């Protein structure tokens, strides 16, 4: 295997409490002064790419689309072991959490970057991002590239012949499929059980600072790839409303089974 691409998304850190400003309508989710990190599923994708690199000596390229801080997100991937990065830099007010940039735009950009890179064997993505939870970028990218794809990977084995055997987790159980080697690249999205991302050591973090990250503005990349900037920046879906979930109501304690049944009937939950 020669080259693995791993797109990584910068999102609100999973441990943060999300705050919604009701006066801002669809853009209510607060992004200012909030801790941002690499999307956890993207982290799993990076880890898998590094493990494959350790077995096959492939080159791992981390890619991110977003404001200038995305370079930090790419550095995290480099510290974990990726070889170089590509940062498509957007203007600071362009939001990646389903407001401006949406899966279709990202997938279109990634398709162009895959072709620009040449010789890509595999694209590993997180199965979804934790802000928009779309889970569409991987499949859209596979469609645009006419690539074989496997989603929700819980185990990936790279064959010597260039094929990938993937165990997928579905609601009905685990399914094993083989992406054959004749069509390249393949697209695989990663699920939680795939691996446990490593914590990089300080020497690796230091090394990462010297690895090459190409920064190119969204406008320039769009031009280079022959895409339409308006197409990319106009979302296909419009966010109509954003609100915090209503606070959970306190449960009721009942004294007996009869009382329980009575309450259930009262609430129309039982005939």
């Amino acid at each position: 295997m020669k080259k693995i691409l791993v797109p990584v998304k910068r999102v609100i850190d999973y441990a943060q409490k999300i705050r919604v400003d009701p006066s801002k309508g669809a853009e209510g989710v607060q992004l200012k002064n909030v801790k941002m990190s690499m999307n956890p599923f993207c982290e799993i994708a990076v880890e898998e790419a590094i493990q494959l690199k350790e077995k096959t000596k492939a080159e791992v390229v981390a890619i991110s689309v977003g404001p200038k801080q995305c370079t930090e997100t790419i550095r995290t991937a480099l510290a974990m072991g990726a070889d170089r990065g590509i940062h498509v830099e957007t203007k600071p007010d362009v939001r990646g959490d389903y407001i401006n940039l949406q899966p279709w735009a990202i997938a279109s950009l990634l398709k162009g970057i895959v072709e620009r890179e040449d010789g890509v064997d595999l694209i590993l993505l997180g199965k979804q991002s934790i802000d928009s939870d779309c889970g569409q970028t991987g499949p859209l990218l596979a469609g645009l590239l006419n690539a074989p794809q496997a989603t929700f990977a819980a185990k990936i084995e790279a064959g010597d012949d260039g094929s990938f055997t993937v165990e997928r987790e579905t609601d009905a159980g685990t399914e094993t499929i083989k992406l054959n080697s004749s069509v390249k690249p393949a697209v695989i999205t990663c699920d939680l059980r795939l691996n446990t991302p490593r914590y990089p050591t300080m020497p690796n973090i230091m090394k990462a600072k010297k690895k090459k990250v190409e920064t190119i503005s969204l406008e320039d990349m769009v031009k280079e790839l022959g895409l339409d900037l308006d197409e990319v920046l106009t979302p296909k879906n419009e966010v109509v409303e954003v609100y915090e979930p209503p606070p959970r109501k306190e449960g009721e304690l009942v004294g007996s089974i009869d009382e329980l049944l009575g309450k259930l009937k009262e609430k129309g939950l039982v005939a």
Partner: protein
Amino acid sequence: MDFLSILKSTHPNLEISLNKYDLDSHGHGESYHPTSPPDAIIYPSSVEEIQDILRLCCREVYRDGDDNIPTVEIVSVIPYGAGTSLEGHLNFLLPNDDSVINNDDVVEIPSSLFESSFEESKQLKNKTKRVKIKRKGGISLDMSNFQSIGELTPGDVFIKVGAGVSRKTLNESLRHTGMQFMIDPGADATLGGMTATNASGTAAVKYHTMRENVLHLTAVLPPTKISSATSSNGSGSNPITVNCGSNSLKNSAGYQLPTLFTGSEGTLGVITDVTVKVFPIPSHVIAASCSFDDLHTAAEVVTMIRMMGVPVSRIELLDEMSIRAFNQSNKEELKPMEEKATLFLEFSGHSEASVMADLTAAQTICVNDYEGSNFVSAKDETTRNKIWEARHKLYYSSIALRGGGDDDEDGATSQTTIVTDICVPFSNFADIISATSKDLQDNGVFGTCFGHAGDGNFHCILPLKKNDTDEYREKVFRVIELMTERALSVGGTCTGEHGVGYGKKKYLEKMYGQSGVSLMQTVKRSIDPFNIMNPGKIIDVDCFSEADLPL
């Protein structure tokens, strides 16, 4: 108005729980002491809220039909982190207060004990006031809203976190910095709780205990004055918040206040944030294990490794029974471990060469000098975990020694299991751990002995069952007594890690003498004169004893 009503009116957004299950769960940690719940749980979100809550814990109340003699009502407070403490720290006790409290006698106390302005207090000198004094239950102060995690400045080796942050949460947030908080007590305890109990664990042999890892902390002190019935806002006597320590690795400025709070088990104040040291993740780690024909020899090996100056990052000793317990609970394994005393070692460092050299030196001691057998080692994480499996699963496989399987409803559980620990000098370690292991056998007591041998610290896990006879229980406690007495007789301690709580109070006088205990009481009385903070733990103090009352 009563305590909660006042609190709700002045702090309408303050979360308070009176739910029975919440109360029960907040009345115990992970010790065998049965639950003793609080009357309410309060979830503060700020230091100011804690100050207001504590201020109400000691107040003057006028009740109808009291002939204008106010009652001083004292409410106990126990701060709650993750609930993983092991010596009854979280159990609410009615302290052995002087007979002055909780009866209907009217006593005279100095007026200066009451909140007043500076001018007033000058006039109140030598005046007294007639009051009744009563304890009015207790509250659990749940610190789970204190979740702040500071920024780790590149180049610095410390980080400031809220007291409610758990150590695993802290380390997850640090996962891309190359640094980690290294103290590992096993449980996912909170930093506040770990400070209050001076926690340590398997990593102590390299990274020491909380005492050496806490650089700074902020604490709210209990009130030193009785708040009056009428005023609703604090005056200068409002419980104060103290800033203890500094971000420098070495600090000789003044009394070492962070150390005062470390291990104070919630008896001196409410810790709201802690600044702890962090260390670089080692680049190279090797794990190893080795078996020995007898426990005494294995313990001697540990001492030798330490004396020879071979650096280890972890070194744990498990007795024969521990291995047997592991084999029994691990039946799917094709090849059971040899049932012998076993050492589990770990070496870590920045260069592969240095770690290999440490391993080789330890291996020579184990195998060549002390005839250890079956020395295995590994570098990759999966194999390392496999080597250490018996140690990692020790707690649960020890409990499983006495049932708890699907068919055994009366089997031992973690709620019925006693875990106790002592710590002694190296020269006595081998003798004492062997003697204790022998005591278990001689008395027919089921249990495992294992130790953070590199610190001279070992534990016994003693599972009890619901239907155990009184005779059996007595034997178990007798074994614990014997082991503790041995430790004290060589100048060791009745607890290396778990703390005193209330189960081990009786040993303090043996360890420190009357004068040592008396000094601790002096400290407690001057910081918490009304004995509001976790009363009945560590030491007993008389509140309003005859010594305190004016003549």
